[in-house]
């Protein structure tokens, strides 16, 4: 493939892709999708949350799991960064600490896909932060 240099090249590429893929139905219904919030304040970023978020975005896309991956602020568990809050449809949010690539894989394979809890949950009466 030729090098993508301009916005026009990018558009060409997008049109090719568009004709090939069957558009996945974009479920706007956030009740149905898995929500992944990666703690991305200073503490999270310094501990490598960018790599964690990248892994979740790529892997969930690859495995065609309907999910929304977003950044969130500091949840106050700076010691356990990177932290990730997972909300499965119809369930309460669960926060995992020390989420590196290895842990991310485990979270996707065991918790997100099978719904079984694994080690590394930060307990406490956790409330999601909205700001």
């Amino acid at each position, binding site marked *: 493939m030729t090098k993508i240099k301009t916005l026009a090249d990018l558009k060409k590429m*997008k049109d090719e892709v568009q004709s090939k893929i069957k558009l996945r139905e974009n479920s706007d219904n956030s009740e149905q999708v898995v929500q992944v919030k990666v703690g991305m*304040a200073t503490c999270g970023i310094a501990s490598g949350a960018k790599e964690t978020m990248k892994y979740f975005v790529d892997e969930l896309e690859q495995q065609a799991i309907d999910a929304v991956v977003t950044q969130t*602020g500091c949840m106050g568990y700076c010691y356990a960064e990177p932290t990730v809050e997972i909300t499965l449809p119809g369930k309460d949010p669960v926060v995992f600490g020390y989420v590196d690539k290895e842990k991310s894989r485990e979270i996707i394979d065991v918790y997100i896909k099978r719904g079984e809890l694994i080690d590394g949950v930060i307990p406490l009466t956790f409330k999601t932060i909205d700001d």
Partner: protein
Amino acid sequence: MKTISDHVLDIVQNSVRAEATLIEIIVDEDKKNDFYALKINDNGCGMSREVSQNAANPFFTSRNTRKVGLGLSLLKQNAEAAGGSFQLWSEPRKGTKVQAVFQLSHYDRPPTGDVWDTWFLTLLSNPAIRLVYKHQTGKGSFTVDSAEVLEMLEGVRLQQKEVKDGVIEWIKNNLEEIEASK
């Protein structure tokens, strides 16, 4: 923070919290005069004088989840450690501008890092915010504007693997073209 991209990822969160609808990230580098300037401008809610004067103080924060606020202070520290300077302007209801200048050739200037990932991940989380990244060097300049990219992608999701890879390749190729510092 290990890279300037990490700082950008971090500082931009401030703008997101300030409910900005436009965030501009500008890197201006000049080999001749040996400087590397990073500017982040937003049109968010801004800060009062008292808050903006304290913003770079590590023991000041507007949050209540913890007692420290290190984002701007770490950027300031890194800029000053690399022979540069740090400045901040803010006006309530107008927005905030942050500028960190580094000495380009300084040993302690953090590398630029994967700024394409920073741009992409921030946009993915905040699709409603117009996110502009501009990089200028003596060889030319390159701008990524999320408004243009999203308009172009109409109908295809940003996360679609081929699209994501294409967008990132496009940014990388152009930064290479203008010989942006790593």
